């Protein structure tokens, strides 16, 4: 074959070889077919570990129990027993872990009316559990006041403060 035909062919072959070499360097060693097969698991295996290392923020009520046993026990006797501490007090881990006890930032408690109304705005939907929760009309029931001014969220059935 003539030289002017072969030369571009060599160039193309050279480019392909370069791409293949670059691929060896760029593609991580653990990139390949996982347990779910090529169709569903063609990926970088170490990414699973990356996700497992993601920081946990919501610790659950058992985490609060040791220091705040009074509140932990009190709320257990009430209809609010099912509500996690962190649902109102905010995620515990950011504030508590990695800080010595005297330097801990305070948790931000959501005392807004809107927060209580998540459940206590009356929505009498016939096929929903929301029907059974007692509600108030926020426009008529002491508007502009925080619920916790009168009601104790840890002991909502004990009467007003």
């Amino acid at each position: 074959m003539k030289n002017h035909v072969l030369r571009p062919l060599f160039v193309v072959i050279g480019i392909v070889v370069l791409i293949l070499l670059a691929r060896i360097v760029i593609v991580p060693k653990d990139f390949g077919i996982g347990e779910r097969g090529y169709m569903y698991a063609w990926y970088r295996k170490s990414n699973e570990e990356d996700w497992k290392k993601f920081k946990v923020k919501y610790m659950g009520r058992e985490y609060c129990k040791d220091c705040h046993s009074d509140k932990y026990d009190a709320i257990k006797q009430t209809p609010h027993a099912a509500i996690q501490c962190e649902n109102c007090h905010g995620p515990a881990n950011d504030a508590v872990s990695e800080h010595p006890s005297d330097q801990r930032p305070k948790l931000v408690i959501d005392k807004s009316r809107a927060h209580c109304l998540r459940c206590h705005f009356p929505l009498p939907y016939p096929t929903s559990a929301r029907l059974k929760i007692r509600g108030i009309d926020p426009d008529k029931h002491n508007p502009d006041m925080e619920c916790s001014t009168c009601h104790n969220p840890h002991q909502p059935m004990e009467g007003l403060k």
Partner: protein
Amino acid sequence: MISRRKFLKNTALGIAGMGISLSALEIIDPRKLFAEVAADKAAVRWAFLVDTYKCVGCGLCVKACKEENEVPYDANVTRTWVERYVLTKTGKLYADTPKGARDGFTTDKIDLNADGIKDISKEGIEKAFFVPKLCNQCDNPPCVQVCPVGATYQAADGVVLVDRKWCIGCGYCIMGCPYGVRFFHPVHHTAEKCNFCYHRITKGLKSACVQACPFGARQIGNIKDPNDPVTVAIRTQRVGVLKSEYGTKPQVYYIGLDEEVR
């Protein structure tokens, strides 16, 4: 000129040839085969159970999810959300999910976006309920199959994850998901989705939304463990899945799923 013998012979061969299915001619990749066998032996396959009767639409699950998974709180994107469905006595259906129900449903007015706010009287409601939504971690995930770079994949335990380092942000998976659970992460600029709180379930904790739900409307479990409460419920109760007609084999099961839910 074709002889009768040749004609019959060719006809018989042709029919026999048509009888062979295409799969019989496929060259088997041993790696693929081993992978399929290994997958069957996995001891864990995460599945989710939602009881729509128990959901009251408080949205504490959405709040917990956004904070746990560092999804920007005020951006209008979320890994999980709660939908409200209201069917009127006149046969009309209204559904809304303001801010993904991050702040719950604190009004009886229905937010129809561009169509304005709809006020339905108590007496006009035939049935109404809340439906939490999240990634279905499908057994046949279309989002994984459309990824051109191998950035999204299914782990052996069934959870579909996104590799943020590998994602090029093409958005095919976001278009490919029939449930609309994927979105762009406003900070990382990569595809983002619910992963059942992979960092929690692999440590023995419950997903953040499951833990935050005061009513037990959300549960997560291992469907390969026959004694897991979630497995027992799926096996013994009347459960449904979303959009089964798509063939995605979703693994989020719903108790009390209504025909109107999409």
